[in-house]
Structures are given as structure tokens and as C-alpha cells.
């Protein structure tokens, strides 16, 4: 019984002095430092590692790197649990705990495998053809079953225990991939003086060359790599990172790299992942190539692996995949695997070479080692269940009649190599079909282009489609040179590393093995292991008319698994093009999307989580609010007190208390968030006349005026009080949410339309704290604090004055959004808290209480004042709100004037603002609609109005509301009905009234 096991010697990446204990499905196992989880599992004879997506077939490790489709595990526990972690790219660490996925009750005995026994009933797209009756069954029966059976890893439950961070890098040249091509490209590029960042996705430099036994500059690749890295590390203009994957290439030279800082050292205090946001003048992708599987019956049985992966496990990790490995190939490279196995003392019963003859130097060497080489042969069928036990061999040219059965524990397959073109393609780089090597490679004439229309990505080595070490090095040197030049540097005539040219026997494209395999065999040939897509599925798609590669992909789900088709895309495409009697390049490829391999959401979010999620804007008085029971509401990025809750009070009770107290005694409002924009200059008045619907140029110095601003589309966008500070200067108040927007709006017009007007604007919102002192006792408080004259005579309503109050230097505006005697007082932001404290201390004897935004809303609603965002919603013009008085008739133009003349804007049937008083005093729900007679052509109830603001008024002890009603102002006294929601609920009847509910004459604010 030949197990997969650890060899006594070998394993260049292992530290055998350091054993590492880990846990898989509850079993305690041991590996070595330097192992991946995959190599450690194989070393422990754990070949079965998961179940496939659809048929729940047993799945083993196929690859040794990022392309692995099968070996996905649930990793870690609690706040460090992560599903779908690839075992091949998971470095082993002490205490690692992993479980396999997608099975019940266990990996060995999975009930889901029933799907496998009825697989014939479940071809590609079967679900589009059934599960349609009865209609409710899809949602309640079929979909839940499918969902439960699909999906892979478990959903994490706990909050992420790790942290993440972002780095920014600006470099001349980013090189992705630290194999010999990447290293050579870096050497060449760095020699020119360019700033180079070289990233490698694994923990080790050098890529495949050491395991392949390459020789560079006359020395073993491993030695050359060590030296190259040492040389690069000494250079100040070079930055090197391992465990850092080039994840995506975006427009204008933007690139992402994903550094797995602490995946192998969990909970060590470092961020788990680091996302690099890179801006590079040039990018070199030295991303290597990925070996393709061969399509033969049973190619998914655990123990069937890529030939290169078998070689990696032997050479890098000292792991034998089994005593006897049959190699099956269509190219020379797989012979390296046979030779490596043989040299490690393992048995290679046969090399099945689909090519009619095997004449290359590697074939000669294999024969010299005594390995049986069978040209023109392939695999008819792999025998085995949860593990390969033998293969039946056949002629590649035939229909698969078995010639012989060879017992073995592993199959090493190679269908040729495909360059990793993902990063090249992300931003529009185009591909060309290479007949010789049967792969798509980057077309250097159609590179992705940057902001100057120039190509900004080069490829190096195997990523360019080069196969030999010698050519890879030459190509890498050329890429480094070209990138340096394109980045504005002068590359030195260099001393690029070289390798000896190799004689290679051409590969033979083999898309189905054997060539004439019948349907029963083709139904057992897997293209996409994870998603269970077989050769027969792609052929079915073609037969049913899913001829475009995108159709076939979507119909069969080929290439849509977590490996995104790294192993399956080309094979699937070839099968499709054969089915369509077309050529591969004519059928084309699907689109490569970032990222290259999946990256954690945590890393995308970075540091910005929890309290740091978005910036919080706080007024200078924020700490006082916090200490005094404020319940905050977000208003844009600001936090404003909604109300201040005292012991035992509900929010509603607090709001009512605040309203009553402000009306009866004295309220204090932190109005600092209100926008404050200075507009100054010889043309400032003219400018404001364009901006506001009413006239601002004729406002007298020292006076205030309420103004409205509309968009060019005529809609009301903001309002506020404008004060004229001096001949040339106005101060415009905006809403809290409008400050930045309106300032930007002003600048837009000044810079882009009226650029010859002499106007200067400054948004000084945060330079001042502004506090509203409101209520019958307002003047008493200010007079007590002393300083300037705030009497009605000295400072009448709608005027402002500078002066001192209680020793503070202030600007006082006599404006009111409450209907009460009110002073809005601005002080420099740094004085805001001290001034507030002085007001609070002085106000105690006058019954002072702070109030929040909800009280503010009720006070203004009782007065019938509109609120931007309540009475307006982006579709309302001032005329709808009865604000015609604030629209100047004298002006030729203002922003929005022409728009307001359009037919729908002047339509007399537009709903108009009114007050609404419920007959029984109840509060109409916010947002309710009033119904009219009948239904419209679409069967909807006709409506005649809607609520825009609705409150319980503590002052009047009843519900009050404002709303827009069809011909409302002409229907005073009429009663209309507002249906309410919920079973058996009764409509609320309300009378149309004037929107001013309190102090209609406006006497209280003007005292």
C-alpha cells in the first residue's frame, strides 16, 4: 500500500529541525517549518481534502500554488475563522487548525455524494430546465436545497479579531513576481536608477527554477537567486516584498498588491493583511505560467495532480505523492517530474506521452534512467474512488480501448503551460494565440494604455509565453530595460544573466484524451474541478447554442469558481471551439477581472472601521453635549444632539420639555454646524442676486435677510439668512448639510461661468461657534452677562451687530427660527465652549435648558417655517411652498428662474403648502398621503396631497402638520383623509389650515 508520505531526505524549503503540530478535521498531525498546509497534509497521507461543489465528489490536492481548485479549507476559529482558504498557499504554523468543506456528515462519508450517483440527471444548466412547478416550490423547496448543497466554506460568525492596513507607494517600476524573470527584470530596471518595487506572492524568492533544476549563469538557480536577492537588497532604489501578491492593475498605472503579513503568524500583533495601493509609471508582470490538466476520464480522482505540482512537492517539501506515479503528458516538461521522482527513489511505472514519438533530450534522459516511455499513449480511465489505484492506458488516437492497467497511487499530468496573463489583461491588455505552445500570451503591441495613451505594462519570462530558462532571462532583461526607458530612465548596457539554450521537442495540443473518447468517457473528464464542469457539459452548451465563450462559461459555470478558471479556462475554450468547429482565437477568451486571487474584505476596508469608519465632525461644544445626556443624530458627518435626556426621561419626554421650556423661559441651541460663507468683492452683490431668488445687493449694511437658493433646474436647494457685513461683504448662512455643497456651488459659478466677476468666497463654517439664545428670557441673560446693548432699539429684529458679551468678542444676529425672541451669537470656534459655559452658568436663574434638533424642528413647524429636506425633496420649487414673497420680481435673472417658467412648473395643479390640523388632535404619521377619488390608469389610488412635516406640538397639545395639497391654499377649512397603515387602521381626517400654528402675527420674535 503506497501512501503519500515524507521522504527521508530532500525538501529545499523545509526546516526539518523544527516540527510543527497542526490539526485537520480533529486529527493531530505533524509537519515542518517551511511546509504549506497542502504539503504537510500530503506528507501525512491526507490525499482526500474536500468535496466538489455540485456532485460532492471526493477531491484531492491538484496543484501546489494559487491555482489550486480543490484544497480549500475552513481555517482557524472564532474571530480568526476563515472559509475557503487554499491549503497550497497556507504556510504551516504551530497550532494551525483546519477543517475540510462542503460535506455532511464527514469528509469521508458525505451524503451529498448522492448527487454524483444521479450526475447524469444533472448536466450543465439542468436547473434552468426544471424545478418550475409548482410555482411556490422553487422558493420553498428547490432553492433551499440547492443553496445548502452549494456554497463552500462556512460563514464566519464572530467579529474579526484582526486588523488591516493600507500602504501607499509611488514607484517608477512595479515588478510582480519574484522568480528568476522578476529578479532579472528588477536587476536591469534598478541599474538604471529607477525606483523599483518587486513583489512576490509566496514566502520564497525564485519561483519554479530551483524545483525545475535550472542553471543560471553557470550555477544552480538557487544560488543565483540568493545572490540576486542580496544584490537587490543592497540597492536604495529597490524595495522587495515577499508574501505580497500583485492583485490588480487599474487605470493610469494604479495597481494593488496584497501582502499577507501575519497569516502565518496569527495574533502576533501585526496587521493580518496590508493592501498596497501603488501608482507606478511602468509595471512588469513576471507572473510565470500555470500548467494545464489533461482531460481524461477520472482526472478528478484524488491522487491525480499536475506534474509540476508533484515535482514541487518532491523537490521543495520532500513529499512523495505515492510510491508509484504514472506521468501523462503532451510536452517535454513533465519528464522533469518523472526524473525528479526517479531520482528521489520513487517508482515511475510509465510516462504516457500523447505525442506520436518522444525524441527530446528529456525523453532520452528518462529512458536512460530506465523509465518506460510510451509515446502515442494516453489514459483511458483512472481507477479509484477516494484515491487513485491504477490507470488504464490506451492509444491517444483511438477511442479508449484499454491496452493495459497499471497500478499506481498517483498520476502526474501535464497538458502544457499557460502564461499568467491576468494582470496584463485587467486594464485592457490584449492576447494573441500562440500555435506553437497552444496558449494565449500577451500581445506586446496591444498593451494596456495609460493616461498618455502609452503602454504601461510589460511582461517578463514565462508570463510572456517564453518556455526556456535562457529565453525567460533574455525576455526579462528586455522587459526591465523597456520599462526603465518608458519610465524615463536610461538603462545601462547590462550584464543580464544567461542560461544555456535547450533543445525542446514541440508540445502537441491535446484537449481530449483519447482523441476519440465517447460520451461516457467525456462525462467523466473534468475541466473545472471545483464547479464540476466536464467536457460533456461544454459540448452540451455548444449544442444548445451557447456559442459565445461568455455564454458557455455562464451556462456551465466553467471558470467561475474560486480559482476563476486558472486551470480550466483554456481547456474549456479548446473543447468549445472544437465543438463549434472553430479556431480557439476566434472563439476568444472571457474577461480577466481583478483580483488575481481572492483578497480579504478586511484588507479592502483597511483601518477605517468602527469609530474610524468615517470622520466625525464635532462642534467645539461637543463634549458638553456628551456630558449632558445628548442623544446624537448623524447629520452628514456631523453629530448633532437630537435632544438631551435627563434621568428617567424618554426621548419624547425630553423633546417636549425642551420645547415648552424654550417657549416659556430660555433655550440654548448649538447652531455651530450651520454653514457660514463669506462672499466679498466689488461684484459680490451682483453675484448674490444671481444665486438667491430674492434681492441681496440692496440689503443694507447691518441688516439680515432670509434667502432661497434654487438649482438651474428650478428646485429649491438651500435657504438661510444673509447678513451684509460691509459695502463689499456678505455673510451667507446655509443649512448644516448645505455648507460645503453651497460653497462648491458658488465657486463653480464664479470659476466657470462668471470668471470675470470680482468675488471672493470663503467657507468659514468651522471658524465660528454659533449659539442660539432663544426664548422670552433671552435678552435678560445677555444683559446679565453684560457688554453690548442688545435692546430692541439698539439691535432690532433682522439686524446684526458686533460687540462683547460677558467679555467675549461676539457677532450677534437678531434672527429667529423658532418664533421666539432669539439671538444667534457667533464667537471664534476656540471660544465656543467657554462662551457656552458662560451662557449656561448665567442662564440658570432664567430657566435655561439646552435643546436639540428635534425641538428645533417642532419650534419651526409650529411657526410654519419650512425645513430644507422636509418640505423640500429636490422636486419642490419655492412657489410650491408659498414663498413667492421671497422671489424678486425686479430681477432679470437668477439661477433657476428660466426653469421655473417651464410648463410643468407653472402648472396651477401643482400641490401647494398648507397646514393640517387633525380633527381629533392626533398626530398624522410622517409621510402619509391624502387620497382623492378613484384610481389612475395604472390602478393606483389617486392622491391629492401628502404630509411633509408632522409633530406633536407640546405648545398646542395637539398634532400639527404641514403638507402639500392639490390646490391647498384655495381649500382652507376643507377636511381631507389620510389612510394609515396596518390591518383595520382608520384613516385620519385633517382640516386644511394656515401653516402658521403659533403666534401668527409674529409678535414674539420681534420684541
Amino acid at each position, binding site marked *: 500500500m503506497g501512501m503519500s508520505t515524507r521522504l527521508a531526505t530532500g525538501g529545499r524549503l523545509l526546516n526539518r529541525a523544527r516540527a510543527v503540530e497542526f490539526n485537520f478535521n480533529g486529527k493531530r498531525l505533524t509537519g515542518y517549518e517551511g511546509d504549506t498546509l497542502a504539503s504537510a497534509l500530503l506528507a501525512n497521507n491526507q490525499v482526500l481534502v474536500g468535496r466538489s461543489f455540485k456532485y460532492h465528489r471526493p477531491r484531492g490536492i491538484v496543484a501546489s500554488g494559487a491555482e489550486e481548485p480543490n484544497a480549500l479549507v475552513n481555517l482557524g476559529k472564532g474571530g480568526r475563522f476563515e472559509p475557503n482558504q487554499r491549503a497550497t498557499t497556507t504556510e504551516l504554523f504551530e497550532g494551525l487548525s483546519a477543517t475540510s468543506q462542503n460535506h455532511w456528515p464527514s469528509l469521508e462519508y458525505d451524503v451529498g455524494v448522492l448527487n454524483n450517483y444521479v450526475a447524469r440527471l444533472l448536466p450543465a444548466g439542468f436547473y434552468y430546465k426544471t424545478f418550475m412547478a409548482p410555482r411556490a416550490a422553487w422558493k420553498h423547496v428547490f432553492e433551499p436545497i440547492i443553496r445548502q448543497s452549494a456554497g463552500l466554506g462556512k460563514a464566519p460568525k464572530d467579529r474579526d479579531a484582526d486588523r488591516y492596513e493600507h500602504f501607499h507607494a509611488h514607484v517608477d517600476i512595479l515588478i510582480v513576481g519574484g522568480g528568476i524573470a522578476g529578479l532579472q527584470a528588477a536587476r536591469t530596471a534598478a541599474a538604471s536608477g529607477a525606483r523599483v518595487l518587486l513583489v512576490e506572492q509566496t514566502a520564497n524568492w525564485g519561483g519554479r527554477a530551483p524545483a525545475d533544476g535550472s542553471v543560471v549563469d553557470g550555477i544552480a538557480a538557487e544560488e543565483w537567486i540568493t545572490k540576486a536577492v542580496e544584490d537587490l537588497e543592497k540597492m536604495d532604489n529597490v524595495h522587495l516584498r515577499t508574501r505580497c501578491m500583485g492583485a490588480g492593475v487599474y487605470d493610469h498605472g494604479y495597481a494593488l498588491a496584497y501582502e499577507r503579513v501575519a497569516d502565518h503568524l496569527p495574533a502576533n500583533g501585526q496587521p493580518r493583511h496590508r493592501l498596497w495601493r501603488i501608482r507606478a509609471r511602468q509595471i512588469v508582470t513576471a507572473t510565470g505560467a500555470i500548467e494545464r490538466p489533461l482531460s481524461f476520464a477520472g482526472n478528478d480522482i484524488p491522487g491525480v495532480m499536475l506534474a509540476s505540482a508533484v515535482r514541487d512537492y518532491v523537490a521543495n517539501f520532500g513529499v512523495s505523492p505515492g510510491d508509484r506515479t504514472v506521468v501523462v503528458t503532451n510536452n517535454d516538461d513533465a519528464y522533469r517530474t518523472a526524473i525528479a521522482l526517479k531520482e528521489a527513489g520513487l517508482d515511475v511505472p510509465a510516462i504516457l506521452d500523447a505525442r506520436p514519438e518522444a525524441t527530446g533530450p528529456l525523453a532520452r534522459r528518462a529512458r536512460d534512467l530506465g523509465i518506460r516511455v510510451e509515446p502515442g499513449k494516453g489514459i483511458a480511465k483512472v481507477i479509484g474512488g477516494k484515491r487513485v489505484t491504477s490507470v488504464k492506458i490506451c492509444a491517444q488516437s483511438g477511442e479508449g480501448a484499454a491496452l493495459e492497467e497499471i497500478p499506481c497511487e498517483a498520476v502526474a499530468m501535464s497538458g502544457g503551460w499557460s502564461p499568467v496573463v491576468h494582470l496584463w489583461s485587467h486594464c485592457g491588455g490584449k492576447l494573441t494565440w500562440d500555435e506553437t505552445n497552444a496558449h494565449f500570451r500577451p500581445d506586446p503591441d496591444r498593451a494596456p494604455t495609460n493616461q498618455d495613451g502609452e503602454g504601461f505594462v510589460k511582461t517578463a519570462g514565462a508570463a510572456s509565453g517564453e518556455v526556456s530558462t535562457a529565453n525567460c532571462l533574455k525576455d526579462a532583461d528586455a522587459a526591465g530595460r523597456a520599462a526603465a526607458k518608458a519610465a524615463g530612465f536610461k538603462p545601462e548596457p547590462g550584464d543580464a544573466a544567461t542560461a544555456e539554450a535547450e533543445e525542446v521537442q514541440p508540445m502537441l495540443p491535446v484537449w481530449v484524451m483519447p482523441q476519440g473518447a465517447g460520451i461516457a468517457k467525456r462525462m467523466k473528464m473534468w475541466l473545472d474541478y471545483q464547479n464540476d464542469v466536464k467536457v460533456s457539459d461544454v459540448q452540451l452548451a455548444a449544442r444548445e447554442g451557447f456559442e459565445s465563450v461568455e455564454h458557455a462559461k455562464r451556462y456551465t459555470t466553467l471558470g467561475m469558481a474560486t480559482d476563476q478558471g486558472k486551470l480550466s479556462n483554456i481547456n474549456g475554450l479548446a473543447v468549445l471551439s472544437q465543438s463549434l468547429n472553430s479556431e480557439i482565437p476566434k472563439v476568444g477568451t472571457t474577461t480577466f477581472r481583478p483580483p488575481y486571487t481572492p483578497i480579504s474584505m478586511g484588507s479592502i476596508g483597511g483601518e477605517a472601521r468602527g469609530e474610524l469608519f468615517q470622520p466625525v465632525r464635532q462642534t467645539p461644544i461637543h463634549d458638553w453635549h456628551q456630558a449632558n445626556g445628548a442623544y446624537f443624530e448623524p447629520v452628514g458627518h456631523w453629530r448633532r444632539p437630537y435632544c438631551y435626556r435627563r434621568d428617567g426621561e424618554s426621548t419624547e419626554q425630553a423633546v417636549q420639555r425642551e420645547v415648552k421650556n424654550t417657549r416659556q423661559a430660555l433655550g440654548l441651541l448649538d447652531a455651530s454646524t450651520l454653514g457660514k460663507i463669506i462672499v466679498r468683492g466689488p461684484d459680490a452683490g451682483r453675484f448674490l442676486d444671481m444665486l438667491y431668488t430674492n434681492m441681496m445687493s440692496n440689503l443694507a449694511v447691518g441688516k439680515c435677510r432670509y434667502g432661497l437658493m434654487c438649482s438651474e433646474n428650478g428646485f429649491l436647494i438651500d435657504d438661510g439668512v444673509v447678513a451684509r457685513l460691509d459695502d463689499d461683504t456678505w455673510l451667507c448662512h446655509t443649512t448644516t448639510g448645505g455648507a460645503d455643497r453651497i460653497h462648491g456651488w458658488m465657486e*463653480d459659478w464664479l470659476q*466657470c461661468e462668471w470668471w470675470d466677476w470680482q468675488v471672493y468666497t470663503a467657507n468659514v463654517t468651522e471658524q465660528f461657534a454659533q449659539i442660539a439664545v432663544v426664548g422670552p428670557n433671552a435678552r435678560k441673560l445677555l444683559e446679565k452677562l453684560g457688554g453690548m446693548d442688545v435692546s430692541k432699539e439698539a439691535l432690532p429684529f433682522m439686524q446684526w451687530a458686533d460687540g462683547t458679551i460677558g467679555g467675549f468678542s461676539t457677532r450677534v444676529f437678531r434672527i429667529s427660527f423658532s418664533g421666539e425672541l432669539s439671538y444667534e451669537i457667533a464667537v471664534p470656534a476656540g471660544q465656543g465652549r467657554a462662551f457656552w459655559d458662560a451662557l449656561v452658568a448665567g442662564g440658570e436663574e432664567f430657566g435655561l435648558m439646552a435643546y436639540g434638533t428635534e425641538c428645533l424642528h417642532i419650534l419651526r413647524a409650529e411657526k410654519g417655517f419650512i425645513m430644507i429636506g422636509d418640505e423640500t425633496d429636490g422636486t419642490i420649487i419655492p412657489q410650491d411652498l408659498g414663498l413667492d414673497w421671497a422671489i424678486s420680481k425686479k430681477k432679470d435673472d437668477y439661477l433657476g428662474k*428660466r426653469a421655473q417658467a417651464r410648463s410643468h412648473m407653472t402648472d396651477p395643479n401643482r400641490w401647494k403648502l398648507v397646514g393640517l390640523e387633525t380633527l381629533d388632535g392626533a398626530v398624522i404619521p410622517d409621510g402619509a398621503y391624502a387620497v382623492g377619488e378613484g384610481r389612475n390608469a395604472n390602478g393606483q389610488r389617486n392622491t391629492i396631497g401628502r404630509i411633509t412635516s408632522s409633530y406633536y406640538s407640546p405648545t398646542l397639545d395637539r398634532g400639527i402638520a404641514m403638507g402639500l395639497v392639490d390646490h391647498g391654499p384655495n381649500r382652507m377649512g376643507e377636511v381631507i383623509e389620510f389612510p394609515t397603515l396596518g390591518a383595520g387602521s382608520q384613516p385620519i381626517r385633517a382640516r386644511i389650515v394656515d401653516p402658521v400654528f403659533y403666534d401668527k402675527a409674529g409678535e414674539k420674535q420681534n420684541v
Partner: protein
Amino acid sequence: MLLLNCPCCGVDADETELAAGGEAHLKRETVGAEDEAFEAYLFMRDNPRGVHFERWRHAYGCGKWFLAARDTVTLEVFGTYPAQTKKPPKAIENALKKKRPDWKGWA
């Protein structure tokens, strides 16, 4: 992530520093304009697949608006220039004619 040179402060600004402002060189129509002309000013847009003149604001930088000629398919930037002009500078027009021979030209 686009990179546009702000002609006011001279820096190459990341897209995240900028706010896009739609088609450039629109002529403001106002009181007195026919309905059709006013509708065109507010809503009708060239929206070309190719050369597009557009407005940007260096919102998280110097705060200035500027204009750019950019290809909406390749995202190539042919140049940026100050907003205080009614048509693109000659240099950009020339560059465009050279790089995009089939460009319909500045109307």
C-alpha cells in the same frame, strides 16, 4: 483610478482628490431662451464614445475647477486646462487631431 494634472496647482491628482462635473463648454441658457435650447443646456449631452471635454474640480486640493479632454473608452487624457475659457486651447485641439484623426473636431 484616474490621474489628472490640475492646471492650477500643477499636481498630478488622484481621482479621489477630484470631483467630476460633467460636460464642459456648455453655454448657459436662461430667461428668454426657447424651451428646446433650455432643455438642451440642462440635459442634452454628447456622451461620446471617445473624445470628451469635461469639468473637474480639484475638490480635495486647491479647490479650483479645471477642464480636461479625455477619451471615455481608453481613458487617455489629452490635456487639462483652466476653466476660464469657452473652448479648448489650440494645443489640445492639435494634439487631438494628431492622435484621433477621426475626431469630429471642435464644434
